[in-house]
C-alpha cells in the first residue's frame, strides 16, 4: 500500500480504529451478555450456521473419508465371518431367551409341587395331582377342567385342594377330564367351623366375585374378623380341618336376623396350575333315611300302644 493513497483516503475511512474497537467491543460484550443470560439469539445462530455448515461439513470430510476407507478394508476381510457370527448369536439368543422364560415358570411350578407333595403326609388320605387344562370361559361359572378323569378313577364329589386349602369339588367326570366346581361358584356350600371356637356353619360361594359368604349366622354369633374357617368334616364329603377361608368383613344390621359375613378363600382358587384330588376318604356310615326313621318311630309308637 502506498502511503500517499492511504493518507489521501484517510478521511474517507470513517471512524478511527480506536472508535471501531470500542464500538465492536461493546457490541460483542452486549451480545455475550444477552447470549449467556437470556439465550435470545438461537434463531440468529441457526441462520448464520447455514453459512458455516458447508465449511464444517467439508472439514469433517477428510476424517470421514479416512474412516470409511478403513472400514472398507476391514469389512471386506471379515464381513462374511461377521454375518455368520451374527446369525449364530441371534439364534442362540432366541433359544436362550425361551429357556429363560421356561425356567422362571418351572421354578414357581416346582415350588408348588413340592408343597403339594408335602401335604398328604400331614393329612392321612391319598391323593393324586392333576393339572388344570381349561378354565371356564363363562365369567359367571367358577369351574375348571383338569387333566384326569374316569381313566384315573376320579369320582364325582371328590374334594380338590391345593397346597393351602380347599379349592373345590369334582362335579363331573369325563373319560379323560373332570370338571372341578370351585368353592366360589354360586350356591356352592362347604360345611366349616371356626378354628377359634369351633362354631359350625356353612360357607357359600358368591359366584360373581371370588369371595365367599356365611349365611344364616345370627347377629349374635361369636365370629370376628380374621377368623379362619376350616372344614368341619360333618357330612363326610370334606375331610376335617382343611383351611377354607378367612373372614374379612362382618356387617351386623339389627334390621336383619342374620349377620352378613364376607370371607376370602385361603387357597389359590383361581391361581394355581396344579391341584390335588383327595380320594379314599374314610366312609361314614350311611345317613338314615328320613322315611325309614319315621316308619320306625311309628311302629315303635304302635308297639307301645299295644
Amino acid at each position, binding site marked *: 500500500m*502506498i502511503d500517499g493513497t492511504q493518507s489521501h483516503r484517510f478521511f474517507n475511512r470513517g471512524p478511527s480504529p480506536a472508535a471501531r474497537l470500542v464500538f465492536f467491543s461493546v457490541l460483542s460484550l452486549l451480545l455475550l451478555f444477552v447470549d449467556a443470560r437470556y439465550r435470545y439469539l438461537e434463531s440468529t445462530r441457526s441462520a448464520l450456521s447455514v453459512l458455516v455448515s458447508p465449511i464444517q461439513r467439508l472439514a469433517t470430510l477428510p476424517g470421514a473419508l479416512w474412516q470409511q476407507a478403513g472400514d472398507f478394508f476391514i469389512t471386506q476381510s471379515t464381513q462374511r465371518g461377521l454375518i455368520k457370527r451374527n446369525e449364530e448369536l441371534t439364534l442362540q439368543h432366541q433359544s436362550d431367551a425361551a429357556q429363560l422364560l421356561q425356567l422362571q415358570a418351572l421354578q414357581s411350578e416346582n415350588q408348588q409341587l413340592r408343597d403339594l407333595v408335602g401335604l398328604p403326609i400331614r393329612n392321612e388320605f391319598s391323593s393324586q395331582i392333576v393339572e388344570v387344562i381349561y378354565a371356564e370361559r363363562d365369567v359367571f361359572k367358577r369351574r375348571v377342567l383338569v387333566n384326569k378323569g374316569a381313566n384315573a378313577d376320579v369320582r364325582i364329589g371328590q374334594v380338590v385342594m391345593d397346597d393351602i386349602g380347599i379349592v373345590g369339588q369334582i362335579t363331573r367326570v369325563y373319560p379323560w377330564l373332570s370338571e372341578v366346581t370351585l368353592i366360589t361358584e354360586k350356591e356352592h356350600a362347604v360345611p366349616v367351623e371356626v378354628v377359634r371356637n369351633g362354631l359350625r356353619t356353612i360357607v357359600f360361594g358368591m359366584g360373581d366375585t371370588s369371595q365367599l359368604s356365611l349365611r344364616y349366622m345370627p347377629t349374635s354369633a361369636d365370629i370376628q374378623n380374621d377368623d379362619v374357617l376350616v372344614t368341619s368334616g360333618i357330612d363326610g364329603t370334606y375331610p376335617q380341618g382343611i383351611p377354607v377361608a378367612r373372614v374379612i368383613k362382618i356387617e351386623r344390621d339389627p334390621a336383619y336376623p342374620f349377620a352378613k359375613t364376607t370371607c376370602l378363600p385361603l387357597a389359590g382358587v383361581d391361581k394355581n396350575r396344579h391341584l390335588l384330588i383327595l380320594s379314599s376318604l374314610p366312609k361314614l356310615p350311611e345317613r338314615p333315611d328320613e322315611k325309614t326313621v319315621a316308619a320306625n318311630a311309628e311302629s315303635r309308637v304302635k308297639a307301645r300302644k299295644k
Partner: protein
Amino acid sequence: MRTKPEIQLPVSNVFIVLSVLAALFLNGLPWEGVALMLRPDFVALVMLYWCTHKPVRVGVGLSWMVGMIADVADASLFGQHALAYTLLAFGGVVLHRRLQMFDLRQQTIQVFGIFAMTYAVYALINWQVNGLVAWPYFLGCLTSTLLWTPLSILFQTMRQKKVDRNPT
C-alpha cells in the same frame, strides 16, 4: 526476508475471502486431545495477516464479523470470538506500520503479543461465563505465533505468483 511492497499487487477480495474460508475449514477439522490443545487459531492468524497487510480493507469491523461466524462454527457464545478478533484486528491495524518495517523474526515477537492478548480475552470470557480457565488452551497461542512466518511466506509467494501471472 522482507519483501518489497512494490512487488506485490493489491490482492483481490476473492483471495482474502478464500483465505478466511480456508482458515475456518482448518479450524473445523476434527482436532482431538493434544492436537486440539496445540491447534493454532488459523482464523486469527489469517485475520491478523490481512489486518497488518491490508489495514484499509480488512479492519476491525470485518474481523468482528468473522468472529461472529467463528462463534457459530465453534458453538461458543455470541461475541466471544468476535470480541477477541476485534482486539486482534485493532492490534494489527495499529501496529501495521511497525510490523511492515520489521523482518519476519521480529514480526513474530510482536505478533506473539497480539495473539497472547487475543487468547487472554477469549479465556477471560470463558472464565467469566463458565468459571474455569483451561491453561493448555494458551499453547495454541504459541503454535499460532510459530505459524506466522510460514503463513507470511506462503501468502507472499502466492501474491507474487499472481503478479507473475497477471502480466503474461
